[in-house]
C-alpha cells in the first residue's frame, strides 16, 4: 500500500505551470528518487507535499488521508519532514539546540511550562535531550553539541539538518538535493547515512542531481521535465530510457 500518493497535482505560478498533473505513488520503506533538469519543478513538488505551497489542482494523500492544503506544521506533525536545498539551520544557535527543535512536537510540554516548571516538565525535558544525544551520536555530532551551527562546515551542516529532520521521528523523510556541495568522501558517508535511515523504517523521497548517487541508492525513480513526468521506473531502466537522455542532453539532431 502506498504511503504517499500524488494524484494529478498541478501548481501554477502566474501563467507558468510549474507542476503539471503529476501522479506518483511511494510505497512504505522505499527510497524514491525524483530527478530532472534544472527548473523541472522538483522542489515545487516538495513544497506542495510539505504544505509550503497549495496546489491548484489534484490531491496529496498520506496514509489514506487527504492532506492537500494542510499547513506545514500540521503535515510535519503527521510524519513528513524535509531538508532544504539551501540549508536552513538556526545559525546562531548550538548544534544541540538545532536538533532539539526537531523534538518540538514529540515533547509533550504545554504552554504553561514556559511559565511554571512542574515535575512533568523536568521529566519531559530530560527525555527529549536524551533523544537529542542519541541523534547526535548517530550522526557523529556529539563533540560539536555546544558549537554554533552556522559556523560549521557545509558537510556538517547537512548532517545537522538531517539529524533535526530525523529527530521528529518522521515516517517520510524528504531530502532536497542532499549531496549538493559535498565532496566525494562526504558523499559516500551520505549514501551510508541514507541507507541507515531507511533501515530504521523511514521512507525516503529525494531529489538529486548527482546521478551516481541516485542510481546507487534509489529503488524507483520519476523523471520530471517542465513540470511533467516523462518517465518512471527502476534506476537501470531510467538510465537507458531515450526520452530521459533526450531531456538531459537534448536531441541529437537539434543543431541541424
Amino acid at each position: 500500500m502506498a504511503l504517499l500518493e500524488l494524484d494529478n497535482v498541478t501548481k501554477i505560478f502566474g501563467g507558468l505551470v510549474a507542476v503539471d498533473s503529476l501522479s506518483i505513488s511511494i510505497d512504505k520503506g522505499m527510497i524514491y528518487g525524483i530527478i530532472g533538469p534544472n527548473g523541472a519543478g522538483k522542489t515545487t513538488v516538495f513544497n506542495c507535499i510539505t504544505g509550503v505551497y497549495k496546489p491548484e489542482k489534484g490531491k496529496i494523500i498520506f496514509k489514506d488521508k487527504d492532506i492537500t492544503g494542510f499547513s506545514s506544521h500540521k503535515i510535519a506533525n503527521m510524519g513528513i519532514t524535509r531538508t532544504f536545498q539551501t540549508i536552513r539551520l538556526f545559525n546562531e544557535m548550538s548544534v544541540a539546540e538545532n536538533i532539539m527543535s526537531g523534538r518540538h512536537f514529540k515533547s509533550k510540554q504545554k504552554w504553561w511550562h514556559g511559565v511554571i516548571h512542574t515535575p512533568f516538565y523536568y521529566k519531559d525535558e530530560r527525555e527529549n535531550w536524551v533523544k537529542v544525544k542519541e541523534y547526535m551520536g548517530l550522526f557523529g555530532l556529539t563533540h560539536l553539541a555546544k558549537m554554533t551551527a552556522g559556523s560549521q562546515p557545509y558537510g556538517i551542516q547537512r548532517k545537522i539538518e538531517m539529524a533535526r529532520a530525523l529527530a521528529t521521528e518522521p515516517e517520510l523523510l524528504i531530502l532536497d538535493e542532499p549531496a549538493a556541495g559535498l565532496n566525494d568522501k562526504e558523499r559516500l558517508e551520505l549514501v551510508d547515512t541514507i541507507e541507515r535511515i531507511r533501515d530504521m523504517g523511514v521512507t525516503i523521497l529525494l531529489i538529486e542531481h548527482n546521478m551516481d548517487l541516485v542510481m546507487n541508492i534509489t529503488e524507483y525513480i520519476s523523471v520530471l521535465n517542465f513540470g511533467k513526468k516523462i518517465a518512471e521506473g527502476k534506476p537501470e531502466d531510467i538510465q537507458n530510457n531515450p526520452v530521459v537522455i533526450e531531456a538531459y542532453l537534448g536531441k541529437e539532431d537539434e543543431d541541424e
Partner: protein
Amino acid sequence: MMNTKNVLYYGIFLASLIILPFFLNSDWVSVMTTFLIYSVVSLSQDIVLGRAGMFDMGHAIFFGLGAYSTAILNMVYGWPILATVPVAIILPIIASVLLAAPIIHLRGDYLLVTTIGFNIVFTQALKNNVFGITGGPNGIFGVEPLKIFNFSLSSQMSIYYLAFFILLLTLITIHNLETSKPGRALHYLNLDSLASECIGINTRFYRLYAFALSAALAGLAGVVFTLQFSAVSPGAFNFIQSVLFFTIVLVGGPSSIPGVLLGTFFMFVVPEMFRQFAEARYLVFGVAMILIMIWRPKGIWPVKFGKIPSYLTKE
C-alpha cells in the same frame, strides 16, 4: 540549566537590590523603583522583540492597559487594589491577542507600522476620555495604596520592594520560558520561520503566545506604576514610550536578560545621575546609542546560545 557562576551573579544582583534602599535618600529610592518597573516592561518587550523577533512598537499599550485598569477600577468602581490585579493582567492579554491576531503574519516593518498605529489610537482614546472613565488628557489622580491584611503599602520603600518582587517574578518567568519548549520555539521561529513550520512548530500560535505572555507581564508592571505615582496619564503610555522600550532591548541585547537590565539602567537611571548637566546629557546619550549600535550591533551584553544540559556531552 543555570550554572553556578550565573546563580552567583544573579544572587549578587538581587541581594544588592534588596539592601540598596537603605543607602539611598527617598528621591533615589523613587528613581530605583521606576527602574525596577521599567525593567519588567523592557523584559516583557524582549519576549516579543528579542526572542520571537516581532517588531512590536506599541508595547506601551499593554503597560498602559494594566495601569489604567487598576486606576479605573479603584477610582471609578471602588475596587480594592489587590482585586484589580487579575484584571490588569488578563485585559492586556486579551487586548494583545485581539490586536496581534490579524497582523501577526506581517513582515517586520509592516508589523512595526501597524503597532505604532495601535499605540496612537490607544493614547488618543485615553485623552478623549472614552466611556467617561479614563479622565481625559490629565488622567486619573489619587489612586489608593495597596492594602494587604490591613497593611497599607504607601511608603516609597514599600513600593520599592513591591516592584522588586514583581521583577523577581518576571526573572523567574523568563528563566522558565528560556529553558522550555515554548521559549525555544520562539527562537526557532524568529531565526527561520519556514524551517520551524516544516519541523512541526505552529508559528502562528507561538507568535500569539509571545504577545500574550509579554502583555501579561507589562500589565502587571502597570499596576505597580499606578501605585508608584498614585496616578496615571496618557503621556506615560504614548508612542514615544514604546520607542524607548524598543530601543532598550536593541541597545541592551535582544534575548539577553542582563543586557535588557543594563539597557534599562542606561535609559532611566544614568540620565538621573547627570541631572546637573540638564539637556546636554541627552546629546551624550544619543551619541552613545549610535556608537553602541555601530560597535556592538548585538547589544551591550549579547545573548549566548548553547545552554544545554551537561549530560549531553558526557559519555
